[in-house]
């Protein structure tokens, strides 16, 4: 494969990373955005942030997820959006591992719901792996933000 072909392939990998991260953010945020109180409780269940601040994070998080999901799907400001998405995933991974090691039995509330559940219902490993995979998508885009069919390409070149 010549250099141009490799560049083209990389742009499609970028597209895939963008859509994966973007759509997951969009869906996760969309499922939570209409019930801010549930989202606030899900964040509080991690028992990491102070009660009131955890509430604010819970209210803001779905909106942030939806907006940056949209930006990623559209491919607008891909590097910055991916950086935000990646940092979110990093925070989620840290939060979930923290809850896990402290012996909490909670639903991460990633796609709505949340709060304490029975120990056998927890799925920390799956949650961590999923978010780590999404963080990898974000990392790719931060290093190489150019991707196929992006607004960045259309508008700013």
């Amino acid at each position, binding site marked *: 494969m010549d250099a141009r072909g490799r560049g083209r392939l990389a742009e499609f990998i970028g597209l895939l990373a963008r859509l994966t991260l973007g759509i997951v953010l969009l869906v996760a945020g969309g499922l939570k955005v209409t019930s801010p109180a549930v989202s606030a409780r899900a964040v509080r269940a991690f028992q990491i942030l102070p009660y009131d601040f955890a509430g604010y994070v819970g209210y803001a998080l779905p909106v942030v997820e939806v907006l940056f999901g949209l930006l990623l799907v559209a491919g607008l400001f891909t590097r*910055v959006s991916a950086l935000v998405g990646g940092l979110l995933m990093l925070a989620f991974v840290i939060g979930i591992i923290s809850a896990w090691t402290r012996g909490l039995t909670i639903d991460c509330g990633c796609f709505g719901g949340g709060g304490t559940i029975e120990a056998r219902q927890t799925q920390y490993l799956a949650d961590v792996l999923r978010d780590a995979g999404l963080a990898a998508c974000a990392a790719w885009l931060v290093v190489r933000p150019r991707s196929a069919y992006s607004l960045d390409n259309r508008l700013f070149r």
Partner: protein
Amino acid sequence: MRPDAKKKIAKVTPKSGPNPVIIGAIVAALVIVAVVVAILIGNSSKSVSANDQVGGSGSAQPADVTGGEGGGIVANPGTAKSNAPTIDLYEDFQCPTCGALEKAMGPALTSMAKAGEIKLVVHTLSFLDDNLKNDSSKRSANAVACAADAGKFLEYHAAVFNAQPAQEGTGYTDAQLTEFATTAGITGPALATWQKCTTSGQHAQYVADVQDSAGRAGVNSTPTLKLNGQDITKTLTTASDLVAQVKAATK
């Protein structure tokens, strides 16, 4: 501006097409506004809205509340012996696991409470309304607080759990809430007072405060059962186990 700066700016500014700095600023501003609005909306849902408390002050504390604003209701006021341990029970009337706990432990809890062997403090939570998108938890929590005013807390509490719908989210109708009052033995003028208290949502703010203070105390699921402040929900197996733990905690 330094004279050579102009050239540099000209170099980095695209010659045609939209300016990324301007679009970026607009997008960033939109994100910030959306986040602020989301936090404001979320925060405002914490206090009780005016139509939840029509005709009532909405902030009145029901009878037998312990532990200040948003504290639980003592189910057996004045009955507990001085050496009796305190059981704090956090429940949502719409929570099926709470229904199961009531079936398994309810009779033991009630008899220990009536015998004064425990001080039973019930915190009626209402967070499931947010999950189930109805208002049955808040309405039934308000109704049981009104029953506490009539001195029939335990009876009303039992009547609600007895009638808990098999399907989570079905909730309770206003007619059902009134039926529970009759079942609980609230009659005559007391029933009229109870009805007014219930329809006006007299304790709506109290119900919201209970939810808030339980959250602050780290209770994020129901049922939660604390014996002398210690969460023993996960270790609890049978009613006799509960009775044994209470005995061990009695000084």
